[in-house]
């Protein structure tokens, strides 16, 4: 069936919509906000994790990761501990001092550039205690290095104390190791903390963003049709083109406007990220990811590296990104838009006065909000559950959740295609109803029509 005139409707509706102040200002403001957020998301960790990053970079380059050259040690316990052999790998010289000398050294290093720390080891009823003082200012000693040093000292104290108690050296590793514990849902692969967080956050943000873009622009279809009816322009249009051409052109135009705004805002994010690249955390850690990440962490002498964990987790979570992800996202967006815009078109056609529009789109709002909650709430747990399984196959919710589920690898390509096929089938049904009903009611004037009235009129 050839539908004459839909291209002209599309062109006019698209052009008029993108020239509205609300579109221009809204797009610029939101794109700017997204650009700033993208920049800060990449840049702020560099400020807050500067010490750690510095250490990781040096470790990756095979350098000595410690900024400490000398440790003045005041052992105030009755036990002898040998730290020299342990710390020689980090090129740290251990110098034993008395308690009084330690006090004096503490004052001394505060005003010098000597890369030295003063460490006191004490013992009381609650156990051993390691207290290390360092000069953060002039000597430029990284706090993370002091933490790592303390970790090595406490580890050594434990080991050597256990050996004094008679534990064989071969058993030390087991005796010192932490007992690891984990839990996860049966039938699912255990995931890391960061990835689990992403599995929760990404779908939630994604469902909100998609809901806003799909749903708000669907409502604009209803508004646009209601304007044409209330201003009686529709009578003129129908002397040249069929009602189906009008709604088709309008729906596709709004879909493209929505996509355009989505892309422009996304570009804002890309620009913000690109601008941040020379200074951001991704460029600093990115090249060292994968197997290198573990080496870096090892090279950092066992100190926990949050930055490596976060960036590594993000890389793992988005490792499924390929062309099919973008195709599924694009197709789902279009189909989801057609679904809601089709319903919106009927809502718009049911009124002949603008003041009736808000009540006419109530059913659409209910369907949309229900779909959104179906998509949103199952994501709070970050794990697969019955509700999330159902939500991705129901046409009212699948447009909001399917893209992120596929992007994060929660579902395979076949499952995604099945969900897309169900959505496409729902679109066909909606469009058939629209085609049948719209023509019958488009010239209706008077009170708002109920759906049952619309069906009667279309017979």
């Amino acid at each position, binding site marked *: 069936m050839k539908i*004459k*005139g839909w291209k*002209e*409707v599309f*062109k*006019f509706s698209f*052009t*008029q919509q993108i020239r509205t102040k609300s579109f221009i200002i809204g797009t610029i403001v939101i794109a700017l906000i997204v650009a700033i957020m993208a920049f800060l998301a990449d840049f702020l960790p560099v400020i807050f994790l500067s010490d750690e990053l510095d250490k990781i970079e040096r470790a990756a380059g095979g350098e000595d990761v410690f900024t400490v050259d000398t440790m003045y040690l005041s052992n105030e316990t009755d036990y002898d501990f040998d730290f020299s052999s342990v710390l020689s790998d980090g090129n740290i010289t251990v110098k034993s001092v008395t308690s009084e000398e330690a006090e004096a050294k503490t004052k001394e290093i505060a005003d010098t550039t000597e890369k030295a720390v003063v460490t006191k080891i004490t013992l009381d009823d609650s156990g051993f205690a390691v207290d290390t003082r360092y000069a953060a200012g002039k000597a430029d000693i990284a706090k993370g290095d002091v933490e790592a040093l303390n970790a090595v000292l406490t580890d050594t104290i434990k080991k050597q104390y256990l050996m004094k108690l008679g534990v064989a050296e071969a058993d030390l590793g087991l005796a010192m190791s932490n007992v690891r514990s984990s839990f996860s849902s049966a039938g699912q692969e255990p995931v890391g903390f960061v990835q689990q967080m992403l599995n929760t956050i990404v779908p939630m943000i994604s469902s909100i963003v998609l809901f806003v873009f799909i749903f708000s622009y669907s409502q604009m279809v209803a508004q646009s049709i209601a*304007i*044409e009816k209330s*201003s*009686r*322009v*529709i*009578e*003129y*249009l*129908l*002397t*040249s*083109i*069929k009602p189906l051409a009008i709604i088709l052109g309008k729906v596709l135009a709004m879909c493209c406007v929505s996509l355009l705004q989505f892309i422009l805002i996304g570009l804002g994010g890309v620009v913000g990220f690109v601008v941040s690249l020379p200074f951001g955390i991704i460029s600093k850690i990115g090249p060292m990811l994968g197997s290198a990440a573990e080496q870096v962490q090892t090279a950092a002498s066992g100190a926990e590296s949050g930055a490596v964990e976060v960036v590594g987790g993000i890389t793992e979570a988005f490792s499924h990104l390929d062309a099919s992800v973008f195709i599924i996202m694009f197709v789902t967006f279009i189909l989801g838009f057609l679904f809601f815009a089709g319903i919106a078109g009927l809502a718009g056609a049911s009124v002949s006065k603008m003041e009736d529009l808000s009540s006419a789109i109530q059913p659409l709002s209910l369907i949309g909000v229900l779909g959104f909650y179906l998509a949103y709430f199952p994501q709070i747990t970050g794990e697969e559950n019955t509700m999330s399984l159902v939500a991705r196959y129901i046409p009212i919710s699948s447009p909001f959740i399917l893209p992120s589920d596929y992007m994060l690898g929660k579902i395979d390509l076949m499952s995604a295609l099945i969900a897309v096929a169900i959505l496409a089938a729902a679109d066909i049904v909606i469009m058939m109803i629209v085609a049948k009903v719209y*023509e019958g009611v488009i*010239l209706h*004037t008077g009170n708002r029509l109920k759906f049952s009235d619309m069906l*009667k009129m279309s017979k």
Partner: protein
Amino acid sequence: MSLVVEHLSKKFGDHIAVEDLSFSIEKPGVFAFLGTNGAGKSTSIRMILGMLSKDSGSVTWNGKPLDIMTEKVGYLAEERGLYPKYNIMEQMYYFASIKGMKKKAATAAIDYLFSRLKIEEYKKKKAEQLSKGNQQKVQLAAALLCNPEIIILDEPLSGLDPVNADLFKSIIREERDSGKYIIMSSHQMETIEEFCEDLVLLHRGKTVMQGNLNDIKRARGRENLTVKADKPIGDIAERCGLTLVEETPNGSSFKVKSEEDAGRMLKEMLDNGINVIKFDLREPSLHELFVEKCGGEVNED
């Protein structure tokens, strides 16, 4: 070329909106499509234009079903509209594009029509910034944009001041003289009489009068008599079998059964030395025919 409407019918539920409407326009000119409010005129026009499905009947142009997607048809709807927030020129280009016009041809047509309608200065304004009359001019320009062969004008002069009404009339005359087939619906009977030779009159969806206006009037004969005299004439009128319709300062109006009765009335007045100031025996006006056919049970829906 001819536009033929045959046995057009439409029902909305149990309500018969249009019943067996038939007429034809065999030659260029202005055809009057009349009716009371809610008589089914707009429904009929929408069916003719193919906007509304018909239950039965056909509309043919040159012997083929009329297809407004391919034929050039201009329509000025009774309830006119423009996009209130959009630039007038952009709307005109949009209307031209859905009529299949290229931009160059559209520009030429818009320039001519806006100049003819004296609204050139409003091209870049929004519709909501224009007066109702100027919006109406833009609408007429939109209807004539594609140089249509068939033009349907639904209440083209309503709401216009006398100057603009004359402007519209001159344009309608131009279109008529250039060989267009025009269907005009109006409640201004003087305008219809000024332009139309043939008509159809609808009442409650049914055709109650149809044909050539002059023929209809001639068939009815001169049955309206208006008399103004310097003395009372009631007794004479009664003796002559005249029925008093109304008395106004301009004289008394009577219905006469035959022109002979009117002649006797005049003779008696003169014989009785009555000074006759006005004696006007005429055919019924379209207004009178309209009221006679539709009066008393007007559908106000």
